[in-house]
């Protein structure tokens, strides 16, 4: 069975206290019985009572008889940590009765769910029409809300430049937050988040006016585009709608959006946004040389959906959202596999910039371009600024938010390596690096 690494287990935890508690439980003395088979990992944990814990690490699903409201609880995390650090002790064996019950129940639920999904298409035409009509109504309702929000945003933008950016700089955080909140309520969440990012620019020092204006201009062009949505080609229309905040469900994606291949999880990054934890995973398709971005979200106290560790391979289908420059995708039918290949890096920074310019020409609101750059040498310069020095001795600035610079330098040892990361037009955020096929994730 595929066991999780320490880092992956920690990423599943709802908070730091759970990690700490789980560390205390990751020891044999706490587990009078413990075992695994190809479906699950189980154990009995000695707490204030004897708790029965089982985990299916691939999904992952958790079950524990303890009364904790946290999910997953410290016992489930402790069991996973224990298995990560002392795999020998967790021997393969026959599952106890209570585990078989849990597995049977899960199988039943899965069957019911599948049956329900199947039933949907079995509905008579009248009911189907009814459902479709209800859905259309919801979409129209949202569309109306979004349009009102966008109109207000346009007025707000015009007011802003009429009074001047210098005037906006004097405003309190409320000025930006207020508009962001109204967009959030109008279900234009992509724009709400964009506005919240803008709010930090006026206090970002030298050159803030220029940076702010560039963003405001781009935002305004998006509004213009939305106004003329009818005359734009479909993929670009989808890009505009995505940027505003519409997203795609698995069922909405056309069949040809799905690409089945072996995928290398080449980089991953987590951050927090609006009380949500977000995880970005970049997957590289071995036979099509494409990159896909899978986003996962979790509320503060909820576990992140599981994802393999960077450097691992998946045989899976990825469904790309419609776009002029497709990146965002949904992942399904993933199975862990073994493979070796690594993506070939771009020759130098100029090649990266060329690719970026070509991408912008197709999708002007592109947030980041993922790419591997070969022959990149991490270098540190005055006042702790970091760069990647490329094969042509040009400097690619590292993103100031990237804090693993020393690990990157340690991996390079002063020799160039291939660095994979996100280019936002100004800075590069390294997510992994390799030389001799050995991937290190940051």
């Amino acid at each position, binding site marked *: 069975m595929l066991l999780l690494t320490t880092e992956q287990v920690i990423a599943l935890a709802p908070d730091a206290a759970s990690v700490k508690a789980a560390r205390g439980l990751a020891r044999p003395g706490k587990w009078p019985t413990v075992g695994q088979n190809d479906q699950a990992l189980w154990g009995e944990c000695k707490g204030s009572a004897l708790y029965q814990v089982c985990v299916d690490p691939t999904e992952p699903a958790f079950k524990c008889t303890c009364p904790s409201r946290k999910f997953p609880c410290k016992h489930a995390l402790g069991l996973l940590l224990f298995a990560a650090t002392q795999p020998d002790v967790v021997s393969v064996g026959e599952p106890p009765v209570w585990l078989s019950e849990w597995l049977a129940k899960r199988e039943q639920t899965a069957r019911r769910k599948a049956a329900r999904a199947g039933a949907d298409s079995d509905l008579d035409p009248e009911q189907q029409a009814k459902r479709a009509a209800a859905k259309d109504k919801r979409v129209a309702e949202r569309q109306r809300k979004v349009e009102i929000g966008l109109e207000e945003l346009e007025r707000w933008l015009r007011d802003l*430049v009429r009074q*001047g950016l210098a005037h906006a700089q004097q405003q309190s955080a409320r000025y930006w937050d207020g508009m962001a909140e109204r967009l959030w309520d109008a279900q234009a969440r992509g724009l709400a988040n964009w506005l919240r990012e803008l709010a930090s620019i006026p206090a970002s020092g030298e050159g803030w006016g220029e940076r702010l204006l560039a963003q405001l201009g781009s935002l*305004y062009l998006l509004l213009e585009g939305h106004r003329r949505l009818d005359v734009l080609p479909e993929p670009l229309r989808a890009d505009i709608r995505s940027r505003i905040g519409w997203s795609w469900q698995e069922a909405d994606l056309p069949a040809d959006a799905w690409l089945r291949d072996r995928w290398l999880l080449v980089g991953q990054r987590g951050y927090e946004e609006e009380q949500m934890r977000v995880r970005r995973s970049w997957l590289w398709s071995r036979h099509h040389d494409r990159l896909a971005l899978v986003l996962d979200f979790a509320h503060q106290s909820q576990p992140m959906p599981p994802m393999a560790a960077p450097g691992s391979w998946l045989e899976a289908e990825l469904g790309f959202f419609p776009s002029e420059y497709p990146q965002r995708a949904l992942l399904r039918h993933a199975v862990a596999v073994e493979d070796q290949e690594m993506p070939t890096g771009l020759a130098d920074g100029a090649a990266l910039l060329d690719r970026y310019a070509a991408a912008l020409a197709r999708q002007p609101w592109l947030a980041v371009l993922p790419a591997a750059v070969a022959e990149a040498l991490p270098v540190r310069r005055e006042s702790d600024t970091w760069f990647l020095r490329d094969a042509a001795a040009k400097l690619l600035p590292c993103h100031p938010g990237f804090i693993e610079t020393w690990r990157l330098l340690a991996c390079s040892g*002063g020799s160039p390596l291939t660095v994979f990361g996100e280019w936002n037009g100004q800075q590069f955020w390294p997510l992994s690096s390799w030389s001799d096929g050995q991937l290190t994730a940051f």
Partner: protein
Amino acid sequence: MAWRELVTCALLGTERQAPSVAGDEDALGQVLGRLDEDDREGALLRAAGVVALWRRAGRRLADDPQSPPPPCEPDAAPGCGRLACQHLALLLQGHDSELLPEWLEALGAAGRRVPEEWLPALLDVGAKQTALRPALLPVLGRRGHWLARHNSDWSYAIGTIDETIWQTGRFEERLALLHQLRAFQPERGRELLAATWGEELVRHRREFILVLATGLNPADEPLLEIALDDRNSEVARAAADLLARLPQSRLSRELTARALRLLRFQPAGLLKRDRLEADLPEDEPVLRRDGITDPPSNVKLGEKAWRLSQIVAATPPATWCREWRRTPAEILAASRDCEWRHALLDGWVLATQRHRDADWAEALLPLHPDHATLTATLADVLPPARFEAYVLTLLREASGGGRASALVVLSHVERLWSVELSRAVLEQVRQRIRQDKQPDWWLASALRGFARWLPPEFSEEAAAGWPTESRQWSQWETAVNEFLDRLRFRRAMREAIAQ
């Protein structure tokens, strides 16, 4: 199209200035030319959007004006496997972090080095915990030393010694340099310190002089003699302490001569046992210079008795055996009726520590059964075999007192145990549980510490034979399980490194 002008206009606001969006004859200019200038806000925002995108797409990278630092030579030693890294991750997150030195030592013993990506985290720990450095430095590999050169916080790990730090570095860096030099080239360290001694600040002098304990040798005497005259009493006292550890130093010889005059040994006669008598020394300026000053407030001895104890403490304890042809035990017996016995004992204990005299340590140990830390300090002077023999004797004593003090000693001394000792200690703990006594909280927590010193391969045997039927077992269970877990973790950790 001038981007600057657009920015200026935007900063001021279109109510004060109209944007001029006319462009050149190029493609960009054509797009801008189509904008409606009468709609000032719209024209400014649209132009900004277009020009910003144009600039973003046309960006070029700057040339690197410098040449990169030289790369690191390849390392021959292998790193370690995934499981070993998982253990390291746990240790670095504060799970059993006391085991980190053991992990590092095991790595070194296996001829391996720290995998590159873990170097920064470990170098950070080493920067904060000097005690970790002896275990860390040998497993950093070339890559680690190379990396340390790029971050001043890690200068302790550069590997080659850079003496210019002594002239130009911060105090902490200079202290680290002196530590390093004293470990490998003590003479060179002393030379550097002697050259700048007169210019050092008082608080720095105090720290520097303490470092000389590492690599202490007779050639240090001239510098220590200068420090003895330091205006700061702490510097002078530290120097006197070091001089007392050098048997051939002027201070040690003079005080030894004085001690021999103060103590009178009367060998046994026909009916009499050996007897030892002592005179008390007067206060003299020469004594004060040699660190024999007023007693600190926490000392129970009187002024003169204190002086006596300090003079005895500056005398190598072997001196007495040679002079009186008696073993330490016989000398201690002879001192039994001496009026100033307490002063003598204090002096002998300190002298034993200073000269790490195992014979005297063995003789002194039974005299202080209740003084835990003192017992531990003396036991620590013993070489491994004699240390174990001593503790085993205590453990096998019929009286509870001996067994109790054995456990106290073991909880204070940081050494690996033999299988025999491990077995005896665990048997002792099991017996306590069987005796149905109230759980001893001290022992329960000491047990956790013991897990660091047992041989890891002993973990299976250690798990068996616990009196789980005993009535008190539930009170002990947690502590025993934690102890066993830790022992097993150490075993798993070592096995993973060896793989």
